[in-house]
């Protein structure tokens, strides 16, 4: 269970980051007192820090230098400034990566995960492997494997992406557009047919796990995960 410290002064963004992080099985801690970032860091002992540049007292660069004096853990900057100079400063002050606002939680999570793996090796990735749990299903996003009870199937990259979106959105509908966006490949344009084909494949994979009608088509908007098996077993 990797622990992540969120140093962000906008309470809403901090909350939203926290919930996104926890969805993927990490433990998140928010900074409460921005004058004591370093003390909190030493108390929490996180595996990774998300650091906003603009903070009420001092700035992110300063705190990054302070953290660097005591630890080599990955520090990812989050900032609204997208100038080259800002990014250079962030990296020069010991940051490992730079995410610009407005950001999408998917990007933040992917970066968190790749930095954790780089910093702590495969062992850590295993310990806190990027996985999603919903309705008795476990999706391992690194191994591209879907587990239900004792059974497991391996998925292709595209199938895993779709399954991830469906599980993430559950109990809501994943729109066709969002799924197309997830499948987007800069090399080959993904059209409606590609989506249909891949959804059909995902359904087949669910059947291999013995789960029927796992993906419902919602006319005019998209697809929804339908965990009929959870209702069958009270």
């Amino acid at each position, binding site marked *: 269970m990797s622990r992540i410290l969120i140093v962000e002064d*906008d309470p809403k963004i901090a909350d*939203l980051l926290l919930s996104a992080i926890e969805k993927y099985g990490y433990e998140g801690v928010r900074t409460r007192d921005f004058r004591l970032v370093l003390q909190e860091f030493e108390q929490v002992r996180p595996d990774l820090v998300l650091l906003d540049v603009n903070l009420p007292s001092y700035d992110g660069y300063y705190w990054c230098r302070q953290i660097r004096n005591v630890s080599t853990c990955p520090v990812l900057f989050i900032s*609204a400034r997208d100038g080259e100079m800002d990014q250079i400063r962030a990296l020069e002050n010991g940051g490992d990566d730079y995410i610009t606002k407005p950001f999408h*939680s998917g990007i933040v999570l992917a970066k968190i995960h790749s930095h954790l793996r780089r910093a702590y090796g495969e062992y850590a990735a295993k310990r806190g492997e990027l996985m999603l749990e919903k309705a008795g299903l476990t999706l391992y996003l690194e191994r591209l494997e879907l587990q239900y009870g004792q059974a497991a199937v391996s998925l292709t990259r595209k199938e895993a992406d779709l399954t991830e979106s469906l599980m993430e959105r559950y109990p*809501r*509908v994943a*729109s066709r*557009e969002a799924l197309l966006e997830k499948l987007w490949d*800069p090399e080959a344009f993904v059209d409606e047919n590609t989506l249909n084909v891949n959804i059909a494949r995902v359904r087949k994979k669910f059947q291999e796990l013995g789960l029927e009608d796992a993906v419902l088509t919602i006319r005019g*908007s998209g697809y929804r995960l339908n965990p009929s098996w959870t209702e069958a077993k009270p």
Partner: protein
Amino acid sequence: MRLFIREHALLLAVQLMQFAAILSIYWLDGYRDLPTALYAVFIGSFFLGCYLIYQYFSRRRYYDRLSRPLETLDESFQTLEDKPVSKALEQLLHSQYRHYQQQLTAVKLQQEQHLTFIDQWVHQMKTPLSVIELTVQNIDEPESASIREELELMRRGLHTVLYMARLRAFEQDFHIKPVLLPKLVSETVHDHKRLFIRNSIFPEVKVSSPGITAQSDEKWLFFMLSQLISNAIKYSAAADKTGSGQKVTISCYTRGRDAVIEVKDQGIGIPKSDHKRVFAPFFTGDNGRGLRESTGMGLYLTKEAADRLGHRLELESAVGEGTVIRIILTAQP
């Protein structure tokens, strides 16, 4: 010289009348010696001439200054001769210059403040956008997609504002370095994926060779290409409401010693009469008026940036057939 003559014409006339008056007084008094009289006139004219020549040469710059229009504001700061009239003129010009300078400085300062404010404001707006972007993930379809689409528009709008502000401070805001064009093209297309998907438009990227490089500023080039791509998507979508697989082709190739980035759509096209005007600020044309979020600034900013970076833009378009816009850069071998 002409000004000087015009200025002293009356003096000459008065002098001549004086000669005539003095001579006629002597004449009527009975003194009639013509050579002496003429000699007196000659002496008088000689002194007058000397006076005028001295006057002209000692105040030549003063007359010169008065008869030639000011080319620049700085010219009013020249020093003139050390003569009362010249001094007075010099002081007048200097004080006028100072007033103008003060006003200019004030205006510049105001503009500077405004620019800084806009810049800060745009960055401040990004945080609420992030919050909405993250919150919207917990909202159900189809509202979620609709809100995200609006967010996308806001993000683009903010970018346009930011770049408009940056354009004014262009000199401090660009770094020319070799840019790998195919990489830039694919990044820009990727950045517009949501817009492509929403409008069911197919991007088609054609790169003649993966190593095409040109000297440019990456950020501005990205912005320029973004404008061209989002226009292409908009006009393709407007041309075809059925959404049956329109294509926008983005190609990158070399042409002689130039590197070319080309954005081609099969959209509604631009009427011939508007070709000249599409790059003008605030120009929206009939096309723009029929579409939302058209400020008419995108292409203007693209053109301005191209001029400053030393790139050229080419436009070919026919109504109902589509539009091709090219950015022409100097290729690096």
